[in-house]
C-alpha cells in the first residue's frame, strides 16, 4: 500500500466557511473530500462513501460530533478508520469525552496547514499498519483452515494405508489419538497366516507432515509383509532399510515389534528406543522389557540388528507397550509422569483392575486432564487361548479350478543363506497360487513352517528339543540356535512340491530333506502315539504333532532327515 496515495476524507463542520477552508486545504494536499454540515449527514456519507479518514467538528447541531463518532466507529467494525476531532475545546474533560466516544486524536481550530498535513499522514500510517496486520491475520486464518482441511484429507488417505488392522480384536486394548499420525505415533496389528499376531508401535522424531510421510511406508511394509507370513525380524529389516533411505539424517523412528504366538504361549519382542514394555502376569509378578536396540532408520542394513528376544508367557499374561508421550505427560507444575508414574500405576492396579484402565486413569489423575496430547500411544495385549484368531480377510473367491493345478517345484537353500533368509513367505506364495490351497493358507503355512523349523533346528542345527522343557534350557536353546546358525557351511534344506488334482479336490505333496543327521523317528513318542495325549509344555513334540494332525500321511526316512508329507484339500 502506498503511503502517499490520495485518501478519501470525510469532514463534518456546521460552519460553512470553516468547512470550505478545510476542504480546500485537504484538496491541495491531493486528497478527495466529502463534506457534511452535521452529524446525521456525516454518518450517512460515511456509509455511502466509505472514507479512509474522518475529521469531525465536536460541536454541531442535529447530532454532535461525539454522537456521530459513536455511530461511525460502530459502522466501521473491525476496519480502522482514524477519527480526528476538530475542536476549539480545551477543557480536559471535554477532550477526554471525545476520545471516549471513539476519537483517535484532535486538531485544534483555527486550522494550520502544516499540522493538518502531519496529522493526516500520521493517522494514515496507523491505518495502513492496521490494514496490513488485519490482512496478514486473515491470510493466516485462511492458511490454517486450509492446512487443517488438508490434514483431514491426508488422514483419510493415511488411514487407508495404515488402517488399524486387527487392533479391535477382543484381546487388545489401546489408546491412540485420532490425529496422532501428525505427531508421529503409529500403532499397527495384523493377524498372521499361521495364527498369532504381529503388533508394531512406533514414534517418529519430529511432528507434522514429515512424520506422517515417514509412517506411510512403515504401514505398507508392515501390513503387506505380515499378511504374507514374514516374521517380525524380516519386517523390521525392511522398515529400517526403507527409513534409512528416505528419512533425513536427523529423523528416525523409535519402535517396538511384538510377535505373538498364542499356541506356543510365546512372545518374540524387539524394542528399539521405546520405553520399557511390561509383561504382567499377576499383581506381584511382572517383567520389564527394555529397549535393547537403536531406533529404526539410523543403522544401515549391514549393521542393523533385528534379533528378537523370546519370552515365554502364560494365558492371561498382559503385555503393555507405550510411546514416550506417556512418560512425558506433565502435571500442572511441569513434573513429568515418567517411568515412576507407569510403575506406580501398574503396582496399584491390583487384581481387579485392568492395567490399561489403571494406567489411563493414573495419567488422567496426574495431568488433571481428560484429553491427552496428540503424541500418546498406549497398547495392552492379552495372551488368550487361540485369541484374536481373526483369519486373514478372504481373498476374492476364485473358481477353485482356475490357477495352476498340476505342477512341481524344487527349492533348495544352501550354506549361509540358511542363517540369513526365511524362505517361508516365498514358499507359501507359490502354494497360494492354487485357489483351493489359498482357502487353507493357515494350515499350509503351519505345515511348511513346522517342516522348515524341524529341518533347520533339529536337522541342520542339531538342537535337542528337550532343552525347551525348562526355562534355563529355553534361553540356552535360542542362544545356541543363533551361534550354530553362523556355522552352516555345506548344509542344505531342500523342498520338493508336487501338486495334482484329485476327484474331490487337490493333493499337495511336500518332501523336505535336510543335510542333518536325522533323528530316531522309530521311537519318537509323538510318531508312536495313536492318540496325541500331550502332557505339559512339550514344545519339542508339538511341531511333529501338528504336522501329523494336518497331513493325510507323514513318512520319515533317511534316518529322519527326509520327511514326505501329503496334504489334501477338497472342493
Amino acid at each position: 500500500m502506498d503511503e502517499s496515495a490520495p485518501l478519501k476524507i470525510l469532514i463534518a463542520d456546521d460552519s460553512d466557511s470553516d468547512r470550505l477552508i478545510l476542504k480546500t486545504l485537504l484538496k491541495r494536499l491531493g486528497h478527495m473530500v466529502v463534506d457534511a454540515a452535521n452529524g446525521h449527514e456525516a454518518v450517512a456519507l460515511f456509509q455511502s462513501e466509505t472514507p479512509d479518514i474522518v475529521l469531525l467538528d465536536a460541536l454541531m447541531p442535529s447530532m454532535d460530533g461525539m454522537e456521530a463518532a459513536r455511530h461511525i466507529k460502530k459502522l466501521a467494525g473491525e476496519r480502522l478508520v482514524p477519527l480526528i476531532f476538530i475542536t476549539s475545546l480545551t477543557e480536559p474533560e471535554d477532550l477526554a469525552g471525545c476520545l471516549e466516544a471513539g476519537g483517535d486524536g484532535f486538531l485544534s481550530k483555527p486550522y494550520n496547514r502544516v499540522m493538518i498535513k502531519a496529522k493526516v499522514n500520521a493517522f494514515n500510517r496507523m491505518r495502513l499498519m492496521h490494514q496490513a496486520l488485519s490482512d496478514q491475520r486473515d491470510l493466516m486464518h485462511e492458511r490454517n483452515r486450509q492446512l487443517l482441511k488438508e490434514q483431514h484429507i491426508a488422514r483419510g488417505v493415511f488411514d487407508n494405508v495404515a488402517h488399524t488392522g486387527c487392533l479391535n480384536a477382543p484381546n487388545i486394548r489401546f489408546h491412540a489419538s485420532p490425529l496422532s499420525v501428525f505427531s508421529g505415533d503409529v500403532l499397527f496389528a495384523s493377524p498372521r497366516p499361521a495364527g498369532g499376531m504381529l503388533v508394531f508401535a512406533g514414534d517418529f522424531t519430529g511432528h507434522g507432515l514429515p512424520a506422517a510421510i515417514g509412517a506411510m511406508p512403515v504401514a505398507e511394509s508392515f501390513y503387506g509383509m505380515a499378511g504374507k507370513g514374514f516374521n517380525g525380524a524380516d519386517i523390521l529389516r525392511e522398515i529400517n532399510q526403507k527409513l534409512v533411505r528416505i528419512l533425513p539424517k536427523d529423523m528416525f523412528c523409535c519402535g517396538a515389534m511384538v510377535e505373538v504366538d498364542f499356541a506356543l504361549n510365546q512372545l518374540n519382542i524387539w524394542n528399539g528406543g521405546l520405553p520399557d514394555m511390561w509383561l504382567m502376569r499377576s499383581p506381584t509378578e511382572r517383567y520389564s522389557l527394555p529397549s535393547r536396540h537403536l531406533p529404526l532408520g539410523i543403522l544401515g542394513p549391514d549393521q542393523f540388528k533385528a534379533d528378537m528376544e523370546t519370552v515365554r508367557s502364560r494365558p492371561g499374561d498382559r503385555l503393555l507397550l507405550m510411546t514416550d508421550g506417556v512418560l512425558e505427560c506433565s502435571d500442572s507444575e511441569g513434573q513429568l509422569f515418567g517411568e515412576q508414574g507407569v510403575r506406580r500405576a501398574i503396582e496399584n492396579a491390583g487384581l481387579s483392575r485392568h492395567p490399561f484402565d489403571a494406567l489411563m486413569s493414573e495419567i488422567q489423575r496426574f495431568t488433571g486432564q481428560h484429553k491427552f496430547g496428540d503424541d500418546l500411544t498406549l497398547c495392552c495385549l492379552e495372551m488368550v487361548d487361540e485369541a484374536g484368531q481373526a483369519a486373514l480377510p478372504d481373498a476374492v473367491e476364485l473358481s477353485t479350478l482356475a490357477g495352476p493345478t498340476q505342477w512341481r517345484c524344487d527349492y533348495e537353500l544352501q550354506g549361509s543363506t540358511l542363517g540369513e533368509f526365511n524362505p517361508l513367505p516365498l514358499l507359501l506364495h507359490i502354494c497360494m497360487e492354487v485357489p483351493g490351497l489359498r482357502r487353507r493358507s493357515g494350515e499350509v503355512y503351519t505345515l511348511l513352517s513346522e517342516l522348515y523349523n524341524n529341518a533347520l533346528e533339529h536337522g541342520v542345527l542339531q538342537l535337542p528339543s528337550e532343552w525347551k522343557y525348562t526355562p534355563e534350557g529355553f534361553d540356552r536353546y535360542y542362544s545356541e540356535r543363533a551361534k550354530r546358525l553362523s556355522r552352516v557351511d555345506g548344509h542344505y534344506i531342500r523342498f520338493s512340491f508336487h501338486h495334482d488334482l484329485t476327484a474331490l479336490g487337490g493333493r499337495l505333496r511336500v518332501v523336505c530333506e535336510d543335510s542333518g543327521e536325522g533323528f530316531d523317528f522309530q521311537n519318537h513318542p509323538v510318531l508312536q502315539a495313536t492318540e496325541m495325549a500331550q502332557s505339559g509344555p512339550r514344545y519339542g513334540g508339538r511341531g511333529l504333532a501338528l504336522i501329523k494332525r494336518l497331513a493325510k500321511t507323514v513318512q520319515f526316512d533317511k534316518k529322519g532327515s527326509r520327511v514326505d508329507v501329503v496334504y489334501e484339500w477338497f472342493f
Partner: protein
Amino acid sequence: MPIETHRSHDGRSLTIKIEGRFDFSTHQAFRDAYEHGGRDVSGYVVDLSDATYLDSSALGMLLLLRDHAGGDSADIVIQNCNNDVRKILTISNFEQLFTIR
C-alpha cells in the same frame, strides 16, 4: 550463550558445551558450532554437564554431527550427562554410536 565451543591445544579436538535445554531451539547454534569448528578437527566432545534436558530432536542433532564427523568412523564423546539425559541416551541405545562417559 547456550552453546560454547573451544578447541584443544593441538586443534584436533572440538568441545561443544551445551547449557540448559538441548532441544530444537538450539538446532542452528549447534549446527554452527560444529560446521564452523575448524578444518582439521578430527574428534568431537559434546559436554552436557550443564544440559538439563534433551529431547528427540537433540538426538537427531547428534546424528547430524555424527554424519558430519564421518559417519561410522566418527570420533564423538558425549560426556558429563545428568541422570535424566543419560536415561534418554540409554533408551535409544546411543552408546552404540557414541562414546558416552
